[in-house]
């Protein structure tokens, strides 16, 4: 989506700072949150910057349940909204993630993962919330989960998160880990207009014709913001096309299937990966977040030693980028999945691999990062 321009502004930034830059570029005008390490910089910078923008609103709420509640309220009122948190706060947000899915409220949630469970390791990295991001809230629901492996990508993926939230009218979760969030490095700020910025569709019909949850070809109904004259009803109860509660199986079925279809039929657009030397790979690595960075270095070193290794960096975690991973599994003799958890993404890899090739995991849950040499060692042992 970024078209390279000649002169770009360089800044030296933390991953968390880059998230804020990305959010502001994407048009975020509302932030509500509750402080928690290692995500707090996002909130603090938003507190300083949003009030200085013409429309910007910043709110510190009493907890993460309230933060997401306020964010959804603002989203319903037409704002582009964001909140950021870490493990314990992410657990509290689950109730309202489900609500946002149900009412189809566009918003972005950043979860800077730290070691868990519970209060766990406040300042150490982890990737332990991957499956929670997918399945944390109750009930069947589709969701988009993105990730970033370096500071530049924090900015880019935040913009993409907002764009997907708007385009598909859904909450989008951006999963970072403490390493990426707290790495400070040089990044380029995009020129104005460099990124395409998407806005949610609004009704093109007068209020008396508008059905807020009507099935459309795209499966994404336009959103009438509160106060725009449409006077819609919004509810977390399963609803009919008018938005009113329903118990009728036919209406429930249609609503549920549309909710899934609106994401499913655009997999191509949503499933983002970076492929690095995968064309001739005999050993494939699938990684994400800061671990993908270690993996990239390991691949370069292994190539120097003559190993045919390739890497897929998952920028989209869910919906799981099955086509790319299956293609890699078809040509590689073995797939390595390094991650800072007990094997949450490797489950997905094994699922789509369906026994085709060997899948080996490298897992760490001790609050330490996975180093390039650890991955290199595994490559040489395959």
């Amino acid at each position, binding site marked *: 989506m970024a078209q390279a321009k000649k002169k770009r502004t360089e800044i030296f930034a933390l991953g968390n700072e880059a998230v804020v830059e990305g959010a502001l570029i994407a048009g975020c005008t509302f932030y509500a949150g509750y402080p928690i390490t290692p995500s707090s910089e996002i909130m603090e910078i938003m507190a300083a910057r949003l009030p200085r923008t013409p429309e910007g609103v910043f709110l510190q709420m009493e907890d993460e*349940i309230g933060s997401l509640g*306020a964010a959804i309220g603002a989203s319903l009122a037409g704002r582009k909204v964001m909140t950021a948190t870490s493990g314990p706060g992410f657990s509290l947000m689950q109730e309202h993630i489900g609500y946002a899915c149900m009412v189809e409220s566009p918003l972005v949630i950043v979860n800077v993962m730290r070691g868990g469970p519970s209060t766990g390791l406040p300042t150490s990295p982890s990737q332990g919330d991957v499956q929670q991001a997918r399945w944390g809230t109750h009930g069947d629901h589709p969701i988009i989960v993105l990730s970033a492996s370096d500071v530049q990508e924090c900015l880019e993926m935040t913009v993409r998160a907002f764009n997907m939230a708007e385009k598909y009218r859904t909450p989008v979760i951006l999963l970072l880990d403490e390493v990426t969030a707290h790495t400070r490095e040089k990044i380029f700020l995009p020129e104005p207009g460099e990124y395409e910025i998407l806005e949610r569709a609004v009704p093109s019909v007068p209020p008396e014709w508008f059905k807020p949850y009507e099935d459309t070809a795209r499966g994404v109904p336009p959103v009438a913001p509160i106060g725009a004259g449409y006077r819609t*009803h919004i509810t977390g109860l399963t609803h009919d096309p008018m938005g009113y509660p329903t118990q009728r199986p036919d209406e429930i079925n249609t609503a549920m299937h549309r909710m899934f279809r609106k994401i499913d039929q655009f997999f191509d657009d949503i499933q983002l990966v970076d492929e690095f030397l995968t064309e001739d790979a005999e050993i494939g690595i699938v990684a994400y977040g800061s671990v993908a960075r270690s993996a990239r270095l390991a691949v370069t070193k292994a190539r120097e030693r003559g190993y045919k290794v390739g890497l897929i960096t998952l920028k989209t975690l869910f919906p799981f980028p099955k086509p790319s991973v299956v293609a890699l599994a078809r040509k590689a003799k073995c797939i390595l999945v390094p991650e800072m958890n007990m094997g949450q993404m490797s489950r997905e890899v094994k699922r789509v691999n369906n026994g085709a090739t060997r899948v080996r995991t490298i897992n760490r849950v001790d609050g330490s990062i996975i180093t390039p040499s650890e991955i290199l060692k595994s490559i040489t042992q395959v």
Partner: protein
Amino acid sequence: MSEVTQLIHQYLRHNKKFPHVLCPGCGHGIAMGSIVRSVHAQGWSKDDVVVVAGIGCSGRIAVYMDFNTVHTTHGRALTFATGIKMAKPEMHVIVIMGDGDALSIGGNHLIHAARKNIGLTAIILNNNIYGMTGGQCSSTTPTGDFSMTTPYGQLEKSFDIVELARAAGANFVARGTAFHAQQLDRIMTTAFGRPGFNLVEVFTPCHTQYGRKNKFKNPVEMYKHISKTTMPLEAWSKLEPEKRAERTPVGVFVERDEPGLEERYMEMKKKLLGSAQ
């Protein structure tokens, strides 16, 4: 057309599937009527009114009214409302909650919304019980009373909503009842026209869940009980202290005029943006 019919046509949704969910004799419908009449008295455009509701029988009334309506999650309505008001300060925000909703699961949000003094009117429909889930005790079930989860009598004390809201910093705090509908209209109309956080507690009888477990023969008895046990605040204040416990005062308890959070926020923005230029 009688005034009632006219208001029904003007403010209730024509395309909503009736019948409604409330039991015969439920006080929640009376409170809803009062909300409609008070919005009408304010002369607000329906487009500019947003009703945010929690979960419970109380929260269900939002769907019938032809405003912008948001039926949220149990106890969290005020957080959504806070976001809406900050995002669109020109909207008139009315929040409807049950007693379990506002004080048990949502107690933290309630005190913080009051402390923030966010500009909206919070209406708590207090029936001393969890109506929707089948009559379990709430944090306003009086000591000694019976419910599905206090079959041997409630041991805990109940919250005094008025005192709680006053202490938390609400701008305006009032108590009315579903029996005194005209007084309730006056209270709500006043609350709607004011800045900052306004709280209105409404006693509404739930015979289905509370009444039948606490020896009320029918809903009418419950309304009679409200009439007998309440008293205007002015008269109550003149009672001997030992007589006060027998009656619950109704009326307006707190009237402060501090600007709402959204107004203070706009002031701050003006200063910041002014200095930046």
